[in-house]
């Protein structure tokens, strides 16, 4: 496997761990974003950290989006005070539609696979104008388009 394959594999596996943590049936784009943030030594990790978005900050932004979206229909997640369920260590979790779209968008920026860089994957996630990720970033006061510009620069200048 090439270096980018290993990187992609690590991001998706981290995304799967994040999805399992959420009890989610699929890995979604926001799980991949958490997966990228966890790779602190890579260009996406640096771009996100420079915007104040480490893994914990992204988690907090996602939690806020969840609560906000529920509040628009009068639901508070705190109203359901059941104990946290035990995650299934073996539940198979595949890529959801939003994650597939984010990866496709990222791949689209590299004319050949050997040109694909980690920052392209971040760019693919940040290009979504609808869905959980852009909503969470807006609520956190992050300018998504500026962040995407930083990702684009990182993809063209820094290798990793």
């Amino acid at each position, binding site marked *: 496997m090439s270096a980018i394959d290993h990187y992609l594999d690590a991001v998706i596996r981290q995304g799967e761990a994040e999805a399992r943590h959420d009890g989610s049936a699929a890995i979604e784009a926001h799980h991949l974003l958490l997966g990228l943030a966890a790779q602190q030594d890579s260009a996406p990790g640096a771009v996100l950290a420079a915007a104040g978005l480490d893994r914990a900050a992204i988690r907090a932004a996602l939690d806020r989006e*969840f609560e906000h*979206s*529920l509040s*628009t229909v*009068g*639901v508070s997640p705190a109203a359901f005070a059941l104990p946290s*369920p035990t995650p299934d260590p073996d539940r198979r979790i595949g890529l959801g539609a939003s994650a597939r779209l984010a990866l496709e968008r990222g791949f689209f920026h590299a004319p050949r696979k050997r040109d694909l860089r980690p920052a392209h994957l971040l760019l693919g996630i940040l290009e979504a104008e609808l*869905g959980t990720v852009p909503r969470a970033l807006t609520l956190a006061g992050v300018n998504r388009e500026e962040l995407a510009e930083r990702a684009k620069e990182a993809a063209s200048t820094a290798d990793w």
Partner: protein
Amino acid sequence: MPDVPEDPADALAAVVALRRLADQLEDAAVEQAMRAGWSWPQVAEALGITRQAVHKKHAKRLIAAGVTLRRRT
């Protein structure tokens, strides 16, 4: 109760969040019931789904969690 959100993006995001909340709630409520000694058929009937479906979805997780499960009778 608030009115239906005026912004379609809010209304659609609420659907996504409600599905996620329902999934989390199902995991937590099934675990709570099984810890309280409910049987698979009881949980399945309460949820309105087949016992095969509820077993397939939750059995491994609850066994891993050390919940003593009643036999599938």
